[in-house]
């Protein structure tokens, strides 16, 4: 009897312990979370060496727009992988609370637990990267702003204890990384003359490297270096040379595609428009890639000005629509490669260049063009190694407009717009977010209508014609498509590739997707509400890998606007560092 009572007591006790165990674990988890959230973030002094070694820091930080100087947007983290990604869930969400929405195109920079975010209309904030708690906020008091394609700010650069931001009113602002206080600001150019800034700067050694935008307003573009300590200008290189901008009078692209130009008429007019270079355009929309070993920076240069009327700017209009290689220390032009001479289709180079190493050991620069080709150039000489197969359809390339409208593919948005590629260096694949947007290129049209494309005019969507997006893996070593996924809407935003054999990208309908980097199979998605039209990032904290993306839509394509930064991780119950999957919990 006594043994029976003891046995029963033991059973009851075991039952009580079992019943209480999940609560105890939950309680422990809550306490752990509480301890995590209470940990004050530290502000790390970002050294030059950290920036140089950003590629090899194990993935814990995201120190610049493209993660490292190559612009590959490649994270070596593999905790989130093809096996575990199905359990990915929102760890926290940060809503910026800005009063004016616009295209949210930011890629956050993350340094040892502090995330730096910028929003439309140039608000910058520091956020605890563990919890999303805001640490400080800087609201730039904008002066005159004339900008194209949305009030964008794509991100910051960081060096030492200073965060650097460019603004729509063409300023470079240096902020204290710990407090957001302004250290200094520099007026780069006159915003009333159409100059503006929308991209993230890059810091190399003691220099802040910036481009300029405004070609839609008749500026003369440039790339410039400022001293990062005091904002003094170090060098300036115009993207429109004062000599030779007429180039070689190319009848074709450099790869041989006919441009249907009237070279004879252009040459006849060249005297009349001899000073057109002064208003030649040549914006730099995105940040440079940098080869630290050779001290070379590579920039993509945008369209000439005026954008559509080539008759008043005869010649090839160098260096518009070019990949331009410059000496980081002096700004001297090392080489250039022009994708579209004398562009009248707005098929300019906007997506940032990426430095890659091919299987044969050659260092190359790759760029996804609006033309729907990925150009792969020798990094040392600028010679074309190969051009990829088109990642989007091409029809009537370089055709002239007509009153009835010439059907054109790619449309004026591309191809690839400003969206940065990501690269998986192991596979040798570049992942390109593309737009399938057939358009009519016409010589006259109805008057201005609110909400139309920013060009508003020459390029019109064709009623009844389907538009969609493509997400393509291009094998950089062959130029062929490794795989391609089709999505509902034209894509704009960019991607992130990881060592977990994943590639993340967002869509305008709010979906945030994870594809198998090898096969293109969709493994996970989350619906973020507003369009996820920015390039995601990844970082690691306390043994947990996070994936972060700004989901705030895109004005240019009319995707729903919002103000959220979504940050994902695997549930803690899977264990930090554990690669084992828990029972599947699909994304919401």
């Amino acid at each position: 009897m006594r043994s029976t009572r003891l046995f029963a007591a033991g059973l009851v006790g075991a039952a009580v312990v079992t019943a209480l165990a999940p609560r105890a674990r939950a309680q422990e988890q809550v306490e752990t979370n509480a301890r995590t959230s209470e940990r004050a973030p530290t502000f790390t002094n970002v050294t030059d060496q950290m920036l140089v070694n950003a590629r090899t820091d194990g993935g814990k930080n995201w120190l610049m727009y493209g993660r490292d100087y190559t612009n590959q947007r490649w994270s070596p983290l593999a905790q989130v992988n093809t096996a575990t990604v199905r359990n990915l869930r929102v760890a926290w969400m940060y809503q910026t609370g800005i009063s004016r929405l616009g295209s949210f195109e930011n890629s956050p920079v993350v340094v040892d637990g502090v995330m730096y975010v910028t929003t439309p209309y140039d608000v910058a904030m520091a956020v605890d990267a563990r919890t999303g708690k805001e640490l400080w906020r800087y609201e730039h008091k904008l002066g005159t702003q004339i900008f194209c394609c949305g009030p964008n700010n794509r991100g910051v650069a960081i060096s030492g204890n200073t965060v650097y931001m460019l603004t729509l009113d063409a300023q470079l602002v240096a902020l204290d990384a710990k407090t957001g206080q302004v250290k200094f600001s520099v007026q780069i150019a006159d915003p009333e003359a159409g100059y503006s800034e929308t991209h993230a700067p890059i810091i190399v050694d003691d220099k802040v490297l910036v481009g300029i935008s405004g070609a839609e307003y008749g500026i003369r573009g440039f790339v410039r270096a400022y001293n990062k300590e005091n904002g003094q200008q170090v060098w300036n290189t115009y993207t429109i040379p004062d000599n030779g901008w007429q180039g070689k009078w190319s009848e074709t692209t450099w790869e041989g595609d006919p441009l249907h130009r009237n070279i004879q008429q252009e040459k006849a007019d060249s005297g009349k428009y001899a000073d057109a270079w002064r208003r030649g355009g040549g914006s730099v929309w995105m940040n440079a890639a940098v080869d630290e070993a050779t001290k070379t920076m590579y920039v993509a240069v945008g369209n000439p000005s005026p954008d559509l009327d080539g008759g008043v700017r005869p010649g090839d209009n160098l260096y518009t629509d070019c990949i331009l290689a410059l000496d980081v220390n002096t700004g001297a032009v090392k080489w250039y490669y022009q994708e579209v001479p004398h562009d009248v289709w707005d098929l300019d180079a906007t997506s940032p260049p990426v430095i890659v190493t091919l299987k044969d050991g050659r260092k190359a620069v790759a760029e996804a063009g609006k033309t729907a080709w990925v150009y792969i150039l020798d990094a040392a000489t600028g010679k074309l190694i190969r051009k990829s197969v088109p990642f989007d359809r091409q029809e009537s390339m370089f055709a002239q407009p007509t009153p009835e409208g010439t059907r054109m593919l790619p449309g004026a948005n591309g191809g690839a717009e400003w969206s940065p590629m990501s690269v998986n260096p192991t596979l040798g694949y570049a992942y390109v977010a593309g737009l399938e947007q057939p358009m009519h290129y016409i010589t006259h049209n109805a008057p201005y209508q609110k909400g139309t494309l920013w060009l508003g005019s020459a390029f019109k969507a064709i009623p009844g014609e389907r538009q969609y997006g493509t997400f393509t893996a291009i094998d950089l070593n062959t130029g062929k498509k490794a795989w391609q996924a089709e999505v509902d809407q034209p894509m704009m935003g960019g991607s992130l590739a990881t060592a977990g054999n994943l590639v993340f990208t967002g869509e305008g309908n709010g979906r945030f997707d994870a594809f198998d980097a090898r096969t293109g199979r969709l493994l996970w998605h989350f619906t973020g509400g507003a369009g996820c039209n920015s390039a995601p990032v990844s970082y690691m904290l306390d043994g947990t890998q996070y994936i972060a993306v700004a989901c705030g839509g895109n004005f240019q394509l009319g995707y729903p606007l919002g103000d959220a930064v979504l940050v994902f991780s695997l549930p803690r119950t899977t264990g930090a560092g554990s690669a084992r999957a828990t029972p599947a919990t699909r994304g919401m």
Partner: protein
Amino acid sequence: MRSRPESCPDARPAVRGRWSRVRSTAARAARVGIVMALGGAAAVSIAAGAPRVVRRVGPPAAERAAQPAVPAVLRAGDYWSSLPPAGKDAYLTGFLAGAGAEQVATARAGPDTHGDAHSDAHSDAHGDAHGDARGRAHVPSVDGAHVAAAAESLHVAHALRFRFAPSVYASQLDDYYWWRDHASTPIIDAMTEINAQLLAQQGEGDGGPNAP
């Protein structure tokens, strides 16, 4: 016709002397011939009863009245497109200066635009207290220097209605008139529309294509 090449200095004096005599003789003969010809022509004309030849300046009044005049304010797309780049810059520089002056004048104009001794609320910044020689009351000064100073103040305060650089408006007008159905739109209307779009980006006025 050159008589001798300058590269023969030794021969120059003798040549000059000889050629001078020859030129003089020939010149005299030519002058006589011309006078005779003119006289002859005149004689013929008088004899024929032909009217005197009068130098005409421009078309006759009747022709001028028949030609439609295009006021400057109605110049439109074809005119804009015909201008060279320097002409466009000059046009817009003048336009912006005029718009600034008009804005200053409008700001200064009060309820009583005729200006008498009591309407001194809009007198110029320097307070010119001198009346004119006939003793009439002071009228607010609108001389150029003061208008320019006031316009500059507006410019510094980013308060000019047309506040952007000529190159900005030029490129926008080039795009605007690239559209053939815009060709008949007067430039001032196009400028107003473009300016509204640019101001919309500042959060002022109605939205444009890039407005949030």
